[in-house]
């Protein structure tokens, strides 16, 4: 584990360096508080630090205070090491943001034991962060495909909608549905159906750029948000994605399964200031149109067309027959 020591006294620094090196730490040594603050602010900074109290440029408590003011991703365990031994100083050091306090001249055994406490605290923090990240992932991703789930993709779509309006940039929504998916489940079983969905998710994900979003919208429905997508290229990009999904059969436990998808596409030029629900309804109508015109194709949504308003309820009915 990396550890930073900050001490302006060369003798003390050498003693600490050797003691900690012998204890298996990777030591980074600096001569003053300013250097310590800079080193500890770097992305690959040591997470354990031993700071002398009296130092040029910035003293130990000032380094602690400055570091605690930052909104940081990882916790730093800070130990003040000094010859100041009064209760008032102890309180002052801890109030400044130090986690522990050790009086010079230090006892090597005590120093190592206190640093092990620091390591335990950092390990605990790592576990908590990992657990939080796992929970966050599970809350925003689909358990089967690991794509964004409906809530997360809707959230991103809402934000993208506002951004494209604000920055006057083009984007596109692509809503796709696996053709005759029910047949796959009925004839080959749900496990194969799941394999098909996972592979489709992989193909969709690899078909888009890193700044586009792909989410599982429903059972066999997927929503793709294409950011910064020039209107002239939107339909072409949509077609490309559709072809990439169906270009070769999906290899499953029960042999290869040929699948196709139908897509509806809505470009941001058509969005205006309509609410998200209206736009989704429009792209759903285009998808419904693609289904009605033989599947395995893409249709472009035109939100204000009168006939689509008349058939506004149809996609939900047809969704049952897809």
């Amino acid at each position, binding site marked *: 584990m990396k550890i930073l020591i900050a001490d302006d006294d060369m003798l003390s620094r050498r003693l600490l360096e050797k*003691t900690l090196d012998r204890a298996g730490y990777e030591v980074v040594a600096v001569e003053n508080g300013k250097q310590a603050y800079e080193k500890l602010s770097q992305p690959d900074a040591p997470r354990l630090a031993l700071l002398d109290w009296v130092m040029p440029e910035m003293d130990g408590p000032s380094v602690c205070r400055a570091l605690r003011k930052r909104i940081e991703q990882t916790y730093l365990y800070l130990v003040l090491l000094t010859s100041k031994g009064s209760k008032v100083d102890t309180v002052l050091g801890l109030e400044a943001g130090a986690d522990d306090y050790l009086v010079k001249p230090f006892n090597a055994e005590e120093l190592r034991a206190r640093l092990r406490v620091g390591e335990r605290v950092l390990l605990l923090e790592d576990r908590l962060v990992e657990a939080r990240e796992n929970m966050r992932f599970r809350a925003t991703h689909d358990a089967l495909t690991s794509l964004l789930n409906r809530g997360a993709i809707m959230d991103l779509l809402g934000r993208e909608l506002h951004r494209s309006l604000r920055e006057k940039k083009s984007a596109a929504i692509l809503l796709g549905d696996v053709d005759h998916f029910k047949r796959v489940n009925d004839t080959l079983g749900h496990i194969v159906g799941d394999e098909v969905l996972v592979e489709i998710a992989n193909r969709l994900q690899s078909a888009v750029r890193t700044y586009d979003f792909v989410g599982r919208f429903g059972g066999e429905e997927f929503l793709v948000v294409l950011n910064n997508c020039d209107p002239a290229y939107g339909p072409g990009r949509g077609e490309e994605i559709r072809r990439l999904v169906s270009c070769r059969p999906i290899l499953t436990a029960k042999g290869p399964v040929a699948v196709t998808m139908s897509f509806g596409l809505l470009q941001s030029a058509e969005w205006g200031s309509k609410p998200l629900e209206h736009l989704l309804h429009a792209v759903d109508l285009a998808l419904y149109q693609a289904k009605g015109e033989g599947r395995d194709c893409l249709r472009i949504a035109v939100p204000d067309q009168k006939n689509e308003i008349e058939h506004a309820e149809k996609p939900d009915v047809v969704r049952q027959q897809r």
Partner: protein
Amino acid sequence: MQNKVEHQTQQVWNLAELLARVDNDIELLHDLLGIFKEDFPRLKQSLLAAVACGDLRTVGHTSHALKGMFANLGAERAAAAAAKLEELASSGERRTLQDALDCLDREATSLLPQLDAYMAEVKH
């Protein structure tokens, strides 16, 4: 009275404590003594000049640095003398600064030959 008792129980140089601090690493101990021998004259010079002109800030800072060095080396009495100087500087007490400096000088004078003898001994 209590200071006197403390002084009597403190050693000029507590080698056993220093050896424990360096985990009996003689090479490291030799290094530390070398650093001290190099830094001490500079710090002493700075302290003498600061006391002479009543620069309490420098007296405080330098005696603090010396206190840390002496304490790390197990030079208990010299560390205590440096701590006294630091305390006087911090409380603005100029009157007894020279006495405290003389005391520190005496302790350092009795410490240095011991360090030199030990360094010569471990060299062979």
